[in-house]
C-alpha cells in the first residue's frame, strides 16, 4: 500500500515540496530556539505557555473529532460514514503527530523527554496525557492501516480490529478529557478551574474536528476521483451545529457562574480577554472575532437549507474552525495566565520566530496527512474502478 505514497501527480509532489519547504524553515528556526532557549518566543515568567501549547490543545481536539465519524458508523451502523471513517482516523494520526511535535517544541529540555517515562509519575496529569495521546496515535495507525488493507483485498477486516475500534472510541474522549485535566486541576488559576472545562473542550473538538474534516473532504473531492458523499458531509454539518451550540452554551455557563457569583478572581480573566485591563488588551479584537464567528456560524448552521448547501459548507467550516481555534487556543492560554497570581497584567504576544516554528509543525502534520490521504484515496479509487 505504501507504494501509493510515491506515485502521484505533479500537484501531489508540488504540495509536498511546498509543505517540506515550510517545515524546513520551521526546523531551521527551531535550531535557533534549541541553542538559545525558549527566550526567542514571547513567553515570560508570567505567561509560561503560549502559542505552542495553544496549538497542542486545539489539535488534541481535532484528533478527537475524528470519533464523530467512527462512533455513528460502528455503534449506530450509520452507513453513510462507512467510506470516510478512514479519513477521520488518518486525520487523528496527523493531528496527534502535530500535538507531540508541539509538546517537544515547547519543552525547555527536549533531550530529556523520556524522563516522563523513566520517572513515570502517575499523579501528574502530563504523564497520563502522554500515555493516552500515544495510545490513540498507535490505535489510529493500526486501525486505519488494517481497514485499508482489507478494503484493497476485498476482504473483511480481522475481528480484532473491530475490538480496537471500540476501544478507540472512549480513547478519543479520553485524550481531550485528560488534556482538559491538565488545566482544570490547578488551584489558583481560576479561568481554568472549572468542571465544565473538559465538556467544553469536547464540544469545541466535535465542532472543530469535523469542520476540518469537511474541508479535507472538499479538497479530496476536487483533486481525486473519490467522492466522500454529500450525505455524509451533511450529517457532519449537523454534528458541527450541535457541538458548536454546546460549546457556546458551556461558555455562557462560565460567564453566568463568574459574573453572577461576582467573585473577582473568576471575573478578572474573562474581563481581560474581552474588554482588556488598563490598556492591556491585545486579545480583545481576537476574542470578539471568535465570538462573532461562532455566533454567526450558529445562526447560519441552524438553517438546514444553508448548512446543507454545498457552496456554503466550506465557508461555514472555515468560520467554525477559526472561531474555535481562537477561543480554545489563544484565549485559553492567555486568559489563564493574565492576570498573574500576584494580579499583575503582563501580556503575551507570540514572536515571528515562534510563529515560524508553529507553521513548521503544521506543515509537518500536513505532510503526514497528505501522504496518508493519498494512500487512502488511491486505494479507494482502485477499489471503485
Amino acid at each position, binding site marked *: 500500500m505504501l507504494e501509493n505514497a510515491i506515485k502521484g501527480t505533479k500537484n501531489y509532489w508540488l504540495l509536498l515540496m511546498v509543505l517540506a519547504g515550510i517545515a524546513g524553515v520551521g526546523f531551521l528556526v527551531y535550531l535557533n530556539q534549541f541553542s538559545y*532557549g*525558549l527566550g526567542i*518566543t514571547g513567553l*515570560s515568567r508570567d505567561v*509560561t505557555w503560549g502559542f505552542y501549547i495553544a496549538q497542542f490543545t486545539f489539535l488534541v481536539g481535532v484528533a478527537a473529532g475524528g470519533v464523530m465519524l467512527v462512533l455513528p458508523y460502528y455503534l449506530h451502523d450509520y452507513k453513510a460514514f462507512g467510506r470516510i471513517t478512514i479519513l477521520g482516523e488518518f486525520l487523528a494520526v496527523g493531528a496527534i503527530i502535530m500535538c507531540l511535535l508541539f509538546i517537544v517544541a515547547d519543552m*525547555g529540555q527536549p533531550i530529556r523527554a523520556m524522563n516522563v517515562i523513566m520517572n513515570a509519575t502517575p499523579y501528574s496529569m*502530563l504523564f497520563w496525557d502522554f500515555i493516552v495521546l500515544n495510545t490513540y496515535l498507535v490505535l489510529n495507525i493500526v486501525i486505519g492501516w488494517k481497514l485499508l488493507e482489507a478494503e484493497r483485498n476485498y476482504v473483511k477486516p480481522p475481528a480484532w480490529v473491530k475490538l480496537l475500534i471500540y476501544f478507540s472510541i472512549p480513547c478519543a474522549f479520553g485524550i481531550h478529557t485528560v488534556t482538559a485535566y491538565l*488545566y482544570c486541576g*490547578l488551584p489558583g488559576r481560576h479561568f481554568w478551574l472549572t468542571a465544565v472545562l473538559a465538556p467544553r473542550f469536547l464540544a469545541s473538538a466535535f465542532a472543530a474536528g469535523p469542520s476540518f474534516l469537511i474541508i479535507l473532504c472538499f479538497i479530496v473531492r476536487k483533486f481525486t476521483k473519490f467522492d466522500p458523499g454529500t450525505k455524509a458531509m451533511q450529517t457532519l454539518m449537523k454534528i458541527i451545529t450541535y457541538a458548536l451550540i454546546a460549546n457556546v452554551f458551556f461558555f455562557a455557563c462560565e460567564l453566568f457562574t463568574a459574573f453572577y457569583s461576582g467573585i473577582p478572581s473568576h471575573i478578572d480573566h474573562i474581563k481581560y480577554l474581552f474588554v482588556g485591563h488598563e490598556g492591556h488588551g491585545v486579545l480583545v479584537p481576537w476574542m470578539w472575532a471568535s465570538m462573532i464567528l461562532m455566533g454567526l456560524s450558529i445562526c447560519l448552521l441552524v438553517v438546514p437549507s444553508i448548512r446543507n448547501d454545498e457552496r456554503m459548507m466550506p465557508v461555514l467550516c472555515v468560520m467554525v474552525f477559526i472561531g474555535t481555534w481562537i477561543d480554545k487556543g489563544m484565549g485559553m492560554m492567555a486568559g489563564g495566565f493574565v492576570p498573574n497570581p500576584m494580579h499583575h497584567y503582563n501580556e503575551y504576544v507570540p514572536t515571528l520566530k515562534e510563529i515560524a516554528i508553529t507553521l513548521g509543525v503544521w506543515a509537518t502534520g500536513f505532510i503526514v496527512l497528505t501522504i496518508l490521504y493519498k494512500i487512502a484515496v488511491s486505494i479507494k479509487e482502485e477499489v471503485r474502478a
Partner: protein
Amino acid sequence: MEENRRKFLKVAGASAVGLSVAPVMKAHAIGEYFMPASQTGKHENALIGKHWAMVIDISKLTEDINEKITEACHSAHNVPELENKKHEIKWIWEEHFEHAFTDQRNSYIPDSAKHSPVLVLCNHCVNPPCVKACPTKATFKRDDGIVLMDFHRCIGCRFCMAACPYGSRSFNLEDPRNGLEDRKPKNPQFPTRMKGVVEKCNFCAERLAVGQMPLCAEVSEGAIVFGDLEDPESEVRSILAKSFTIRRKPALGTEPSVYYIVGGGDHA
C-alpha cells in the same frame, strides 16, 4: 534567635555523633541537597528539622532591607540579572501588600499598608501543587517540608509554574550565565543552572546541611525567623502562638509554610 540556633546546633551535633557513618568533614553542601539532614548526617553541624517554616514580620520590612535580602539571596544562589525583563528569574522579591495578598481586598486600609513592601518567595507548601503537577518528580518535597528542584531531571515543561498559585517559580528562557558577571557564578559553592529548566527558592537547603540558617533570615535584621514548626520549643512556634499571622491564599488548601505577621508584634 541566637538561642534557638545554638539549640539547633546542639541537637545536630548530638545526632551526628550518634551516627556511626564515617564523617565526611569536607562534605559539600550540594552533595546532601536532596536528602534532609537527618538522613545524611554527613555534616556534624547540619540543622535537622521536621517541618521547616518561616515567619516574616511585614512591619519590619523596608525597601532597603528587602533589597538587601534579595541581593544576598540572589548572589548566593547565582540568580542572574537578565536584560530582558520577561526572562527574569526571582527567588525572593518584593511585592506590595495588595499584590502579595490578593484575597485581602479592602479599600479602606491605609495607603501605607496597601503599598507596604512585602517579601514573597516559595511557600514550601505542605500540599504543593507543583509537586503534584511535575511529570518527572524533578520537583519534590523532602521529609522536612522543603520543596526542591532537581535541575538535572527537569524537562522544562513548566507545568509546575502553571500549578503554583503564588507565582514563585521562574523558568530559564535563556542561558542564565548571560546574566552573571563574566558568565561566572558569584558563589562557586552553588551550581548555576542551564537554560530550559525551572528554579525557585530552596529554603537554603544547602546552608541548612552545613549548619547555617537561610541567608534571608540571617541578613533580615530580625524581620525573618526560620525554624522547625513541629518543635513546640522553636522560635517560630512561640511567635506563631503570640502574634496574629496570615498566609498567602490559605483558601486553596496548599498550607504554605511561610507565615506573615501583619501590624507588628512583640517578638524577638
